[in-house]
């Protein structure tokens, strides 16, 4: 109970993480498709299709403008869906969590392993997208390699939020609510496909105050543009603190769900 469950986390969480990595590697052919195909589709349809109608965004060619957003979105989707639908399947249908907590692992180890894995999956996806985007000439090297280390805390944040929903959902279908009401609007309104600056002032504050993706896109765009400003410090600290907050909430909600 001490320290909101954080003291119950051990190295065992890495065994949980490793189990998920092993399962991912076993089916790597399917898993590696999205990070290669998604950016190509988005770049062709939006970057060059819609982009043909738009000269530039603040002097930046449109495909270059959306490239960092595509990486951010991929991290969001892969991490969030891993820790909602996939975690729920492991928890409820496969009873994998039950098998794990019958060993020396604690609930906190299991949940931490799940979130670390979601973050890792997001990072793998970001890393796989980079060569594709580079081949399209929409990101610069080597600065854009910084997208990879930042994908980890970003993925951790979405995984932790995902786990919170998984802990309270009455069934797998109800996970569609956060997917459509939280993730999809964020996908569209976080400075992804148009600059956040064209929104009314209050909505801009709302976006940076409450939307994880808006903060992450801002950091990733600064990385690919190579333009760093003090606002980024705010974005990064926000991501880290909110990730920690949802991590703690997720641990406790899961403990309530799984231990009686």
């Amino acid at each position, binding site marked *: 109970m001490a320290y909101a469950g954080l003291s119950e986390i051990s190295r065992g969480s890495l065994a949980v993480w490793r189990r998920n990595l092993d*399962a991912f590697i076993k089916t790597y052919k399917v898993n590696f498709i999205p990070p290669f195909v998604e950016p190509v589709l988005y770049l062709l349809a939006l970057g060059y299709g819609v982009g043909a109608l738009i000269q530039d965004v603040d002097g930046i060619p449109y495909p270059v403008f959306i490239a960092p957003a595509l990486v951010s979105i991929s991290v969001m989707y892969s991490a969030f869906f891993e820790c909602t639908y996939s975690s729920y399947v492991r928890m409820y249908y496969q009873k994998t969590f039950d098998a794990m907590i019958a060993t*020396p692992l604690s609930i906190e180890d299991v949940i931490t392993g799940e979130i670390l894995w979601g973050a890792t999956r997001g990072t793998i996806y970001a890393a796989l997208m980079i060569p594709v985007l580079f081949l399209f000439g929409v990101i610069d090297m080597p600065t854009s390699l910084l997208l990879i280390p930042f994908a980890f805390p970003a993925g951790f944040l979405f995984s932790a939020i995902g786990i919170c929903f998984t802990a309270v959902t009455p069934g797998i279908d109800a996970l569609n609510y956060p997917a459509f009401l939280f993730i999809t609007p964020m996908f569209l309104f976080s400075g992804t496909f148009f600059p956040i600056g064209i929104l009314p002032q209050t909505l801009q504050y709302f976006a940076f105050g409450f939307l994880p993706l808006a903060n992450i896109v801002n950091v990733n765009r600064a990385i690919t543009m190579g333009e760093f400003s003090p606002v980024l410090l705010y974005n990064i600290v926000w991501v880290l603190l909110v990730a920690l907050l949802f991590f703690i909430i997720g641990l406790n909600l899961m403990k309530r769900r799984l231990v009686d």
Partner: protein
Amino acid sequence: MEIITAHNLEKYFGTLAAVDGISFSVKKGEIFGFLGPNGAGKTTAMKMIHCVSKRTGGDLRVFGLDTDIEPRMIKQRLGVVPQENNPDPDFTTFQNLTIYARYFGIPRSEAEKRAEELLEFMQLSEKRDAPIETLSGGMKRRLIIARALMNEPELLILDEPTIGLDPQARHLIWEKLRHLRSIGCTLVMTTHYLDEAERLCDRLVIMDSGKILVEGSPAELVRKYAGKEIVEAAANPEFVACLKEKRIEFEVFGDTIQVQADDPQIIAQIMMESCGRERITVRMATLEDVFLKLTGRTLRE
């Protein structure tokens, strides 16, 4: 030496008592059974022993350690076979064992060695690299038992180990469980199969509504609560009246009359000669008679 000791162990879910102040102890090297109808509190008691459910009252020690304070230490030394098979469907039979070993921090080479041995022991070597969905129910059950043995546990907890298995598979599992006992492992199990409890358990408790009704060896319990033999015959009003007249104590279960007897020939003779019954069955009393006598015949959900 006592492996498990429980004193007034309690588990409340809100105001509902799932386990209502039970005391028992399990000795090293014995097979100890929890019997009882559905909802009696057996599984809850087992969950508290393997530290996934927290008690709400009383005291519970496993290996002398408090389950509330040292769950990791306790879980390191015990194996669990849950009621529902839960192999990891993303991996093969062999990988199920080696991945499970990682949760105990067992080094890889040691884990692989034990996995091979246990596949052999549970007669699953042929299915070593098979995906889980190709295993039959009996094979999955054996895999779960093999998995529970990966950490070489001193105590094995089994929740209905042979549920839904064919007779061949049940006999194989019984043989393996007896072998484990012979090498010093302590086993705690629940079962609804009373013949299984009678064959395997050194001692058992029968629970109902969260309480322990009786405790003892199967033979002791049968002797004490069901007598030596049971005489059975079809019931009808005249027959019942005749037995009453002869001052024979009996019980009616649906369309059958049962008489507990140490001298069944005499009872059978009275039934045949004085009460005119021709079809009479005389059989040994079993644990099932004790169970039904103590917990009643009402259906439980």
